[in-house]
């Protein structure tokens, strides 16, 4: 299949190590970027003290997390409580295994890459629910339930929107979808109209899936303290935070692979294009977060079931009809 590293064992290990390193580093400085961005939006300076322009702040944060006390609250289901944070991170990283970074560079070129990525990303609601449930805390449980309700509701339009590229390209492999876009059109423009709506909806549902504002009702800090993660301290809490960032980044990468042509682009090397597109989408995610308000629970559900689901059903049919008529 033209992998840069032919041996599957070696490829898995190298990609695993590489992706985790890159992703965790990215996550660390993304948190810096977000704090700076938020500060600009709110006319503040943000972190300035640790390193030049506060650039070493994430490292200081990580060290702080390591040193804090790890508390398991009374009445908690100890096993599940411990299991939830690594599981969250695990699922965020697992999704990354099928992302094509450049031609011939992806860990697993699965025939069902789209399905695999969506399955793992959809599973992410469950460890968060487990965290909420096992904490034996009312806020956490309520947050966890909201997380599941939101996660499974938004998964449906997400899965349906991701179908549009599958219908157009006739392949479930992410690398095939990217190759198709490099050879023909970017799927955000193709089929005209349908593609761009599908992309916007996919991006919106991806925001909801990774509980970013305006869809962060599960951890609405003004009512639920910190939602499912209320009882978590030290690095366990840190893992949740990084998993959430990692999930956002991976969702952005997935959106660029599905709709924005992935590594396809002129002049610059493919992997740079992929990173640029992902980064651009992530900037939008941050921008949205610091510009919009949080939706209420009922608005959240109504938006999903009354608008996104019917529209995305129509998109799938529209794409099918388009392919049949235009080819």
């Amino acid at each position, binding site marked *: 299949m033209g992998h840069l590293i032919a041996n599957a064992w070696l490829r898995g290990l190298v990609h*695993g190590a590489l992706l985790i390193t890159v992703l965790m580093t990215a996550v660390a400085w993304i948190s810096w970027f977000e704090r700076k961005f938020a500060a600009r939006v709110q006319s503040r300076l943000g972190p300035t003290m640790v390193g030049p322009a506060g650039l070493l702040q994430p490292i200081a944060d990580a060290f702080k997390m*390591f040193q804090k006390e790890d508390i398991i609250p009374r009445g908690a289901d100890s096993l599940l409580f411990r299991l939830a944070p690594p599981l969250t*991170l*695990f699922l965020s990283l697992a999704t990354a295994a099928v992302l094509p970074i450049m031609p011939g560079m992806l860990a697993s070129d699965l025939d069902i890459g789209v399905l695999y990525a969506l399955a793992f990303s959809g599973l992410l609601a469950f460890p968060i629910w487990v965290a909420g449930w096992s904490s034996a805390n009312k806020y956490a449980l309520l947050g966890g339930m909201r997380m599941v309700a939101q996660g499974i509701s938004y998964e449906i339009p997400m899965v349906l929107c991701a179908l549009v590229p*599958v219908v157009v390209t006739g392949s479930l492999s992410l690398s095939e979808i990217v190759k198709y876009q490099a050879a023909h059109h970017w799927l955000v423009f193709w089929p005209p109209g349908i593609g761009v709506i599908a992309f916007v909806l996919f991006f919106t549902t991806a925001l909801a899936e990774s509980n970013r504002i305006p869809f962060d009702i599960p951890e609405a800090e003004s009512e639920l303290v910190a939602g499912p993660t209320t009882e978590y301290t030290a690095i366990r809490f840190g893992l949740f935070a990084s998993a959430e960032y990692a999930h956002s980044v991976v969702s952005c990468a997935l959106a660029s692979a599905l709709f924005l042509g992935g590594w396809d682009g002129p002049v610059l090397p493919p992997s740079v294009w992929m990173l640029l597109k992902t980064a651009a989408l992530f900037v939008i995610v941050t921008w949205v977060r610091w510009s919009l308000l949080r939706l209420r629970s009922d608005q959240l559900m109504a938006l999903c079931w009354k608008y996104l689901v019917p529209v995305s059903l129509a998109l799938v049919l529209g794409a099918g009809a388009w392919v049949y008529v235009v080819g």
Partner: protein
Amino acid sequence: MLSTYLPALLMLVVATVFAVGIFTLTSVLGTKHMTPEKAIPYESGSESDGANQIRLSVKFYLTAILFVVFDIEAVFLYPWASIFRQLGWFGLVEMFAFIGSLAITLLYAWKKGALEWEK
């Protein structure tokens, strides 16, 4: 077949190792001054009130049922999406019928108030 999945599996192994490593590190570096007060469930500083496993609104379960209906639908749509070129217009018509019937289901659930979070 297996070899395409192997790297993905290995990545999962690496991710596990990473998580375990972090926890070992924190258990070495972290402070340990446990007191009974720290283990009290956090309820904004006041004493914990009532049972921790509260009863939840039936809406959550209704959402779960709707999810099952539409997720199964998505499961059927994926194989269709990857081969519907071979099925020709009949495949398209059939999928219109399938999605149409689900749209009626959604309409029914909507009109019956199943989609209202608060009534």
